[in-house]
């Protein structure tokens, strides 16, 4: 997937996620890390895309990560995560070059507008900006979901 393909995918207004998004504890991970995985992103561009995410209750780091199955990540929103380059802890990664999924998305730009938002608000902003209709339920990890 190159930059053009990625932008076409963003524009696709038929994107949907039908499943619930619920962050849960995972075996073999610290008990303060909550994750979800393999939420299919239906789209009319023909790509096999899944969404995974994590919330670290200790650091309050939140992440939504879109993966083109078999290729690699194509878009990732991080709030209060690791500092990336000069764009700080809250930023968005996406595809600029077709090698980016293989390199785990080296490019990112700052999203300071997300810094003080809770997980639900970040999710709603992401869906709105990416033209995704979420038909399932979003279970906020701050609500004590297990």
């Amino acid at each position, binding site marked *: 997937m190159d930059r053009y393909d990625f932008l076409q995918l963003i524009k696709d207004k038929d994107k949907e996620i039908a499943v619930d998004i619920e962050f849960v504890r995972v075996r073999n*991970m610290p008990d303060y*890390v909550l*994750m979800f*995985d393999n939420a299919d992103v239906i789209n009319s561009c023909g790509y096999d895309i899944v969404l995974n995410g994590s919330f670290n209750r200790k*650091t309050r*780091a939140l992440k939504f990560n879109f993966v083109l199955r078999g290729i690699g990540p194509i878009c990732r929103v991080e709030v209060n995560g690791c*500092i990336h380059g000069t764009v700080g802890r809250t930023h968005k990664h996406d595809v600029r070059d077709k090698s980016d999924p293989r390199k785990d998305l080296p490019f990112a730009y700052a999203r300071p507008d997300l810094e003080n938002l809770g997980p639900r608000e970040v999710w709603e902003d992401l869906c709105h900006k990416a033209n995704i209709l979420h038909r399932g339920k979003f279970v906020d990890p701050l609500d004590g979901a297990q």
Partner: protein
Amino acid sequence: MNIDCQSLGTVLQGFSLIKQCDVLPDGTLRIATPFQYPNGSFIDVFLQDAKALPQDDQNVFFGHMLSDCGQTAMYLSDLHIKTWTTKRKKQILQDICATTGVHDHSGELRVPIEVDRLDTIAPAMVLLAQACIRMAS
């Protein structure tokens, strides 16, 4: 310009392992290091008092704990890699821990810092960052 060992030492002596440091709500120090994961994100290490660990973790020593707070495992999960799913991956993780002296505690990489041995924090940070990079690679 001629560079020799002495002048290089002078130039590098100001190099810091702390890019940024802040405090989490529970009092843990979050330290952004100059080391990077393969995608360019800076590796955080976290320092907390061992007394703040869950009761069943306080079984070995008194002092501080340096860890990655699971961030390396979370980095790998972005790539759909889970270190516990195959024997080979588990072996690789064990080998990394054995050669760096880092412990894997349910997905959290840790290095204990003994009480009154803050002089060991710098080499411990380097070892922990090395383990994070090797795992993430």
